[in-house]
């Protein structure tokens, strides 16, 4: 059985670990609230933008021949992987990386064999892990979350779009965690580029308003499409950020609970050892007294 001193020092160390996990949980909770605020702030813009996109494309003669819609035979693939910059958030990053590898295995096995699959990593953890697995990783945007704002995400989106229109990639996919609630994240692996051409709704009622379009509908449309793509990426990053905080909160809550359990067990061992030591001492005294009597 462990000595009293050993048990005592373990209790102290578990105690301080528990304090850390408890603090981390509370920090994550505060950050989660801020992350959710960010999502709420972004929503009106995203909604209005898609309304406007619908209005303009209803007015436009053609649905706009954007270079971002160009469908080419898929030779080179870029996968945008959004993970977190920090660890200690449960299986958050592991799941994303697993999903990315599964995506490559299933959808892009052939391209991967030729070495034509590249990763665009947003978040340090994904960048590190995928580099270790020997993937080609672009790590230009690994500290996005510290100063999360649309302006920074926009730059990443612009770089991706430029690489696509330049023909460096024929398809771009996006892998990220969608925030459902604190305990649940849904992993998405979506096509980002080229933009899927959806069937245009026939006579949507918005077309009845006689808008003045300046410059032309088509030109506005080619302006609006990149904007909505930027928002799409921004939404993914915000969602991932909120998911990360949620995952960390849950993980730290579990850790605090486990520490509590461990402490309970250790205290039991401590008391039992102490009791045993006292009993032994009494026995020795009684034994000594008995010996003196004779």
């Amino acid at each position, binding site marked *: 059985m462990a000595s009293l001193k050993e048990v005592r020092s373990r209790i102290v160390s578990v105690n301080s670990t528990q304090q850390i996990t408890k603090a981390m949980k509370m920090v994550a909770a505060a950050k989660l609230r801020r992350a959710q605020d960010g999502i709420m702030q972004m929503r009106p813009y995203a909604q209005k933008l898609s309304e406007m996109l619908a209005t303009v494309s209803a007015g436009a003669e053609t649905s706009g021949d954007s270079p971002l819609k160009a469908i080419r035979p898929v030779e080179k693939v870029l996968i945008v992987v959004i993970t977190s910059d920090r660890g200690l958030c449960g299986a958050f990053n592991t799941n994303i990386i697993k999903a990315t590898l599964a995506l490559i295995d299933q959808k892009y096995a052939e391209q991967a064999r030729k070495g034509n699959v590249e990763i665009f990593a947003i978040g340090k953890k994904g960048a590190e892990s995928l580099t270790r697995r020997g993937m080609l990783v672009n790590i230009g945007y690994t500290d996005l979350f510290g100063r999360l704002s*649309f302006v920074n995400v926009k730059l990443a989106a612009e770089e991706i779009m430029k690489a696509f229109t330049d023909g460096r990639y024929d398809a771009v996919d996006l892998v990220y965690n969608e925030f459902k609630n604190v305990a649940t994240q849904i992993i998405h692996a979506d096509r980002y580029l080229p933009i899927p051409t959806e069937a245009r709704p026939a006579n949507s009622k918005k077309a009845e308003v*006689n808008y003045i*379009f*300046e*410059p032309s509908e088509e030109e*506005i449309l080619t302006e609006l499409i990149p904007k909505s793509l930027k*928002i799409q990426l*921004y939404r993914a990053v915000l969602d991932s950020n909120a998911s990360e905080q949620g995952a960390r909160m849950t993980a730290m809550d579990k850790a605090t609970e486990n520490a509590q359990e461990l402490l309970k067990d250790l205290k039991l061992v401590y008391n039992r050892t102490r009791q045993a030591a006292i009993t032994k001492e009494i026995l020795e005294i009684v034994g000594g007294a008995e010996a003196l009597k004779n």
Partner: protein
Amino acid sequence: MHLEIITPDKKVFAGEANSVTLPGSEGQFQVLNRHAPLVSTLGKGDVVIDTGAARQTYVIDGGVVEVLNNKVLVLAEAIL
């Protein structure tokens, strides 16, 4: 007329205005009360709001504007 300026990060302005001057991609233009329905792209430049009592200026970095039913909605990518 009612004017709103929003960016993805926050709502910058919401309220009544007499007129607003916008940096259209084809040149600067002004929207007054009861303007006809309009959709236009915006370039980088100043948005000048005249609320009657005061004059406010925001510098935006591109965006779009929609005017409908005496409501002006500016979607700016960023406020500089």
